[in-house]
């Protein structure tokens, strides 16, 4: 794709996510576009645009701003965490160190489908619009449903407080044999 399209993707989808034990060397790896060094702030911008009405919303440490999210993992177990409005579901999984094997392989850049999550229908209808780019990757996800989204594209808002999302059974892309897709 063109580099400007790539840049747009990176800003939209959350490029440089915090990694628990990332050494400086592995950070060097992720700097594939040296001119875009301000990306970490831009990532949060996209999610927060809808919520910013006062400065208090952008300070995530105050407990009344927390959003409860329930993840049902591949073994059917429920994991409940508190996260901040503005975080994407992938941000939540990474920041909270949730143990979902292989989740978010491309680190939120719309280059895979491993952050695929399934919503309940009522909540799914309330979510923001889905871009062609997200749908292109979602189309390749294993266990795709009518209420599936990519976790890196869903930003938490207060109205999603208490949401439950389910992980599909397998992370494999369907691009795995001749002519499938």
């Amino acid at each position, binding site marked *: 794709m*063109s580099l400007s*399209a790539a840049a747009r993707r990176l800003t939209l989808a959350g490029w440089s996510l915090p990694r628990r034990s*990332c050494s400086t060397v592995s950070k060097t*790896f992720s700097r594939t576009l040296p001119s875009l060094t301000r990306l970490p702030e831009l990532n949060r911008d996209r999610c927060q645009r809808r919520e910013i009405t006062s400065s208090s919303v952008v300070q995530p440490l105050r407990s009344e701003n927390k959003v409860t999210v329930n993840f049902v993992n591949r073994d059917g177990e429920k994991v409940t965490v508190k996260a901040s409005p503005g975080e994407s579901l992938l941000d939540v999984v990474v920041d909270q160190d949730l143990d979902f094997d*292989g989740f978010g*392989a491309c680190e939120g*850049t719309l280059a895979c489908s491993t952050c695929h999550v399934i919503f309940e229908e009522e909540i799914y209808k309330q979510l923001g619009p889905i871009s062609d780019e997200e749908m292109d990757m979602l189309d390749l996800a294993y266990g795709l449903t009518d209420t599936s989204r990519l976790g890196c594209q869903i930003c938490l808002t207060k109205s999603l407080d208490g949401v439950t999302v389910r992980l599909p059974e397998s*992370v494999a892309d369907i691009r795995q044999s001749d002519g499938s897709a």
Partner: protein
Amino acid sequence: RHQVKNKDSGPPGSGSSGPGPKVCIVGGGPAGFYTAQHLLKARDDMVVDVYERLPVPFGLVRFGVAPDHPEVKNVINTFTQTAQHERCYFYGNVNVGTDVSVEELRKAYHAVVLSYGAEANRSMRVSGEGLAGVFSARDFVGWYNGLPSNKEPHLNCETVVILGQGNVALDVARILLSPLDLLKKTDITQHALDTLAASRVRRVLIVGRRGPLQIACTIKEVREMINLPDTAADMLPADFESISEALKDLPRPRKRLTELMMKTVKTESGQHKANKSWGFRFLRSPLEVLPGPDGKRVAGIRLAVNKLEGSGEDAKAVPTGQTEDLECGMVISSIGYKSLPIDPCVPFDPRSAIVPNNMGRVKDTAGLYCSGWVKRGPTGVIATTMNDSFDTARMLLKDMDSGMLNLSVNKPGGQEITALLKERGVRAVSFPEWEKINLEEVRRGTAVGKPREKFLDVKDMLAVAWS
């Protein structure tokens, strides 16, 4: 923050000699690292050694993923964390099969996992394949991605024909037609940039045996072709005539892809011509590569015209007896990678070109496993290989738990192999030594506005690693 201070203070191989299980992984690409990741996480007494033929790790993530898809390479961060794990050791510059045998590895470790991928390519098996100007996609991709080798395309012709319509074929087409000012900010090699700057290529045809409903590429890559600046889509409306009826019954992914292609046919008809063009050609198989007057270079390709028997994903291409010739100055065959046998003691099925296995356990060979393309064939993306590698790791762990792998015997692991290698005059590249190569590549790239400038020669890599 390095978790690994203690581990790296000694030379490679001076690692753990404790009583826990020791597993050896052959191949430092996605399959190798994802298998290692899963194993290390599962048991805190497990030590995993990853052997890689090149001084540099990451396999096709480094040498296969297109330079203008940097986000796909983000998985390198995950692999780096795995390699830096205190119970993981990387041994680059070690060729399993020549420097050390699989048998020797099996003696030194509790289990060996083959994850060495598919380094060769399927041949078209037509005459003229050896003419100048004929390349495998594997070699072409390796060329622009800096895989150490001798292939040098020239790009001094107007038309290129690509056989195969998978994502690799589209990557090749896109790199051939992308504007230089986009490419020059990527990690594409400098000599590829120089050749592309002088390129006369204006037209790329991507040819498949079957029809639009069987095309193997995916929608993201087709969209990228459509969005190429100053490049028109050159499709044949006749190829899509009978397709619209089938649309409504298609699953969503196939439907969206087909609709996108059909929209392209409608949009392009009647538009003024752009400087460059690309297009799909369907129902054509290669019969012969045709030489020019000097008999040495390709000047065209003869194609068999096919018809489809059956429909959907399982439709078969059947020759009609008609043929068609296309003029071109370059042919790139993108019909699949292929694994090679590594060692006589490892079973290998030449027909399917994989190591025969049952869910990752190599047949008839205790203690030997496989993951990635060498296990299931050369298709799928990184995420597919990830899942596959986790499956193999789970199988291996199950065998450890059940006693099928005898952990009561201590194994020497990397210590024994390093000693063997030393006797043979082979010196491994450790992960911190790769990091020196990495930093130098990034430094050289930054100087010219690129993420990195890759070293193209093994000896240059080693000089930096061991400096």
